[in-house]
């Protein structure tokens, strides 16, 4: 695979259709040809595809059944990969895949994540295709899978029946299509004796065929990713450092989840705050909150981080003002507060200046911040010394084993996983992955109130966000098909 890049503003990217096969919209993404892409499309297409992949991740991390995931995938695909011109869909498919391949080839964790999500995507799309399209696709890709004739079926029918019965499954009849496949292609079926073998060929029923084709997809993408990774480090990153590289590197860091700018469920009253802080605030916000209660003051970074968070959990502007006022005026006059601090609180709510309703900070943003002397913002898992962090965790009544588990994640620089581990220890149930303090809050409320209803915030919930060089790949391990 080559990436042909020209030195002009219009980016030229190696990509292309899958050769023949008008009836099949699928691809193994192996061949490349030149197509002109604008830089905006370069990024936008990739983002759209990323939303689909993140949606898959989220559905799987919620333990959804395979059929549900498949349906969801198709919906997501239709939603995000729409093009004004239907004929452009294939190009968008190609371009977005190759751009994300660049973005996700650079570390082992990124590659594994991308491989898992793309395989799931391919699987859903393949299974959704009608049998004719599936056959055409396999022909185009020169996959050696032949359906057996009725005569051959008759000759092996008894054995196929034995295999089926050995698995407590119904005996196949001539309506079931079987494919004759070299045994090397179906190791999982061979090892479990779920398939009849004859002189080196496996007789695979049609519904298992998908897993073989998907297996092919996986193998090819694995090789391609390894190759891309090498190409990236040796040539592309440097060649493209002024143009494509910044876009690509930012892609894997991008937070695509709910922005919590509108509080989702009801509102929070002033009187609830202390209780909520004790029970449902993530460690970063607890720290800020209790320091505020203690010092009656917070510096700018802390005010921003905590203030926006409180807005996100449902604190109204009037309540926010009286909350901050009540604390600050323990150390200063009301006039001073109104003059110097009230304005910025209203600003955060979009009531002043350019009227932007600011969104609460995500974990990524908090982790990458740099608290200085006198600051209490940032991410305690990142910014506290290990001794201090340990003390704080023990104060929260975490048992020693949980503390060790958290510290272990911290040592490996998986700060969000550490937060998730602490969540689990406190609430007694696993978290869905922590990417945003407000997400922690919501999950905590759900866990404590035993809420069955899902809270659909704006945008998509996402699972792990991939880190980059300064924070080695951080990911919640997900089961891969």
């Amino acid at each position, binding site marked *: 695979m080559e990436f042909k890049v020209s030195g002009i503003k219009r980016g030229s990217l190696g990509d292309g259709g899958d050769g023949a096969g008008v009836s099949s919209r699928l691809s193994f993404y192996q061949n490349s040809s030149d197509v002109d892409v604008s830089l905006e499309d370069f990024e936008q297409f990739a983002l759209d595809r990323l939303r689909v992949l993140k949606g898959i991740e989220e559905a799987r991390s919620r333990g959804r059944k395979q059929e549900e995931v498949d349906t969801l995938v198709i919906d997501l695909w239709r939603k995000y990969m729409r093009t004004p011109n239907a004929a452009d869909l294939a190009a968008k498919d190609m371009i977005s895949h190759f751009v994300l391949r660049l973005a996700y080839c650079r570390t082992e964790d990124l590659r594994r994540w991308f491989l898992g999500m793309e395989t799931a995507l391919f699987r859903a799309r393949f299974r959704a295709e009608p049998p004719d399209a599936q056959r055409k696709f396999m022909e185009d890709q020169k996959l050696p899978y032949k359906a057996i004739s009725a005569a051959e079926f008759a000759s092996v029918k008894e054995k196929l029946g034995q295999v089926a019965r050995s698995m407590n499954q119904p005996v196949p009849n001539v309506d079931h299509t079987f494919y004759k496949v070299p045994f090397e292609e179906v190791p999982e079926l061979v090892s479990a004796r779920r398939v009849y073998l*004859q002189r*080196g060929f496996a007789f695979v029923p049609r519904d298992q065929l998908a897993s073989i084709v998907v297996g092919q997809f996986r193998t090819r993408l694995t090789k391609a990713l390894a190759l891309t990774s090498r190409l990236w480090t040796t040539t592309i990153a440097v060649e493209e450092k002024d143009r494509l590289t910044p876009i690509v590197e930012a892609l894997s860091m991008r937070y695509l989840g709910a922005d919590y700018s509108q509080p989702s469920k009801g509102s929070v009253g002033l009187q609830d705050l202390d209780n909520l802080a004790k029970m449902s605030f993530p460690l970063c916000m607890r720290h800020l909150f209790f320091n505020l209660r203690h010092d009656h003051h917070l510096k700018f970074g802390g005010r921003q981080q905590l203030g926006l968070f409180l807005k996100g959990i449902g604190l109204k502007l009037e309540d926010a003002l009286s909350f901050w006022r009540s604390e600050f005026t323990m150390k200063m006059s009301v006039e001073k507060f109104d003059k110097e601090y009230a304005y910025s609180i209203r600003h955060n709510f979009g009531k002043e200046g350019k009227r932007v309703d600011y969104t609460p900070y995500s974990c990524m943003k908090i982790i990458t911040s740099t608290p200085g002397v006198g600051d209490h913002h940032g991410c305690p898992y990142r910014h506290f010394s290990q001794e201090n962090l340990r003390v704080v965790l023990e104060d929260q009544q975490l048992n020693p084993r949980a503390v060790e588990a958290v510290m272990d994640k911290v040592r490996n620089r998986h700060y969000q996983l550490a937060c998730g581990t602490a969540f689990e220890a406190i609430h007694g149930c696993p978290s869905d992955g922590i990417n945003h303090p407000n997400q922690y809050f919501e999950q905590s409320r759900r866990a404590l109130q035993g809420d069955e209803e899902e809270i659909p915030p704006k945008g998509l919930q996402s699972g792990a966000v991939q880190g980059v060089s300064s924070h080695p790949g951080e990911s919640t391990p997900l089961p891969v098909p």
Partner: protein
Amino acid sequence: MEVEENPQSLPQGHPRPQENEFSPDFLKLYYGRLFPYAEMHKWLSYGNDGKHPGCDTSYFSRREFSFTLEHDIYLRYLSFHDAAAMEAAIREKCPHKIDIGAVYNVEPTKRTAYSSVGGDKVFSPVERELVFDVDMTDYDDIRSCCSGADICLLCWPLMTIAVKVVDTALRDDFGFEHILWVYSGRRGVHCWVCDSRARRLTNEQRSSIAEYFRVCKGNEMNGKKVAFTGPALHPCLLRAYTEVLKKYFEEKILPNQNLLAEENFMKVLEMVPDENLRSQMRIKWQSSSSSNEEPNSKRWKQLKTFLEQGKSKGQALRRCVEEIIFSYTYPRLDMEVSKHMNHLLKAPFCVHPKTGRVCIPIDPNNCEAFNPLEVPTLSKLLDELNRVDTELDPRLKDWERTSLANSIHFFRSSVLEPLARTNKAELESSYRVKLQEMASKPNLSW
């Protein structure tokens, strides 16, 4: 082959204690005059011996060998350019054991030139026979005649079963043709599948084949090792059962190991998942223990009858008879040996240091006749060499005058010759393909 003399009165079938069967001096003579270097080289070259224009002359030299010398000194990543180099090294070093590894992308002796840089050139295996190792110690929980390193004619049928079942499956199910079975020298057998399709299998595929052969799972803790859940057996298991296992169990294993004798039958009964049935049988047999006649076959018939009747009662008993038979007979392969391309395995025609026996090939079509206690030993071979027999043709080579003759003849006719035909055909077809590719490309690149 001469029959071993048995002057001391030992239990029937047990071998004479091995004294002076092996010594470094004997080994030196063996390597000097008997070891079949040319045949080994012919085998491992797979036709790449330089005569055909399409052959890969580096092929043999990229094969890894390892030597275990006296005092357990271990030399790995050895490789040789040709048969002469291999012979010279073996004769010089006189290894107590020779292992064969994989064919790598580079000569193993030159591997360090490639390993360090994280580029494309990483020292890695390219081809390797599909191998299996069956070791009698994996059956220790079901044999009472011997244990540990010992073997005898009462437990050897377990190996016969393994050869038959695995060999049939490799041919009929997987389509392999060039299969070499070798006696391991003491207590087991090895299998080398030499088809090119087998040599190119990945670790994952090897793993899946090994798992295909795995039926016994679990250990002493769960009691039962074999569990058949469906109403039918997979065709390969059914074939093994009807062609080999049932017969061998009832005719050999059951009586040889005295499975239903007083002290043993509880172990078999524990495999019956019905408490009532177990107690019934236990009481019945305990009361008949005074009878003099051999109890095994009678009790087995009784158990089978009761289990057949019990089938209607519930699912658990449905396949109990098969489960028992499989537990006591089905081959138990060493999974780890088969799974990795770079796993080293002992070479055929080595001599086992503990027994002095030569690792000779076994004919799978005649494996019932194989007797491990009659396998030639070093001392016997050297006796034969030293024998001056005026009736023997003086033009005969050394090995032809010894008991090794049969084995080497067999290796040539059953393994090397068919392999040579296949190798030639494959070389020619790939050479033709290469010529076609070259012809279709333009000579000038522009």
